């Protein structure tokens, strides 16, 4: 669409990359946390 010359502040949609991947943490699930 035509913005009419003046560029308004664009909304930011982007991927914030993370170095590395982790999934080391494992814990038991209680009935309460199951429903959280």
């Amino acid at each position, binding site marked *: 669409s035509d913005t009419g010359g003046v560029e308004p502040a*664009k909304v930011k949609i*982007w*991927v914030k990359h993370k170095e590395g991947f982790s999934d080391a943490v494992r814990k038991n699930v209680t*009935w309460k946390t199951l429903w959280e």
Partner: protein
Amino acid sequence: MPIVEVSVSKLKSLFDIDGSVAVTTPLGNTLLEIQGELEFPTVPPVNDVDNKFSIYNNKNIVRFGLLQVEPGSKKATMLVGEKQRLLGSVVKLDSPLGLLKFDHSTGTVDLQDVIRYKIIFKDRPLPIM
């Protein structure tokens, strides 16, 4: 009370289909994984010049990107926002993932789908060429 049966009624048919390669399940679900965070405003902005924000089923939604999966290949490309291009791939999961829906109002659990593939984007985003 601490017991609930998982309803699987939706899935009966799924186990009859033998797993042909499809990123989207027969029930229409797709798993997309990004190494990082997908950032966008949590409220629709005033100056939505590109009409990215809209409403679907009474919920605010945002159009955040475009996806291309090369037919017959495992390569995927995702364009996010105006600037980023991510290269990823379609991978078969070591173990399928069951999608469970927990209904707090009725206290029931429904196994809604079985996901066998995902599209994963691990690499640092590139600029759109």
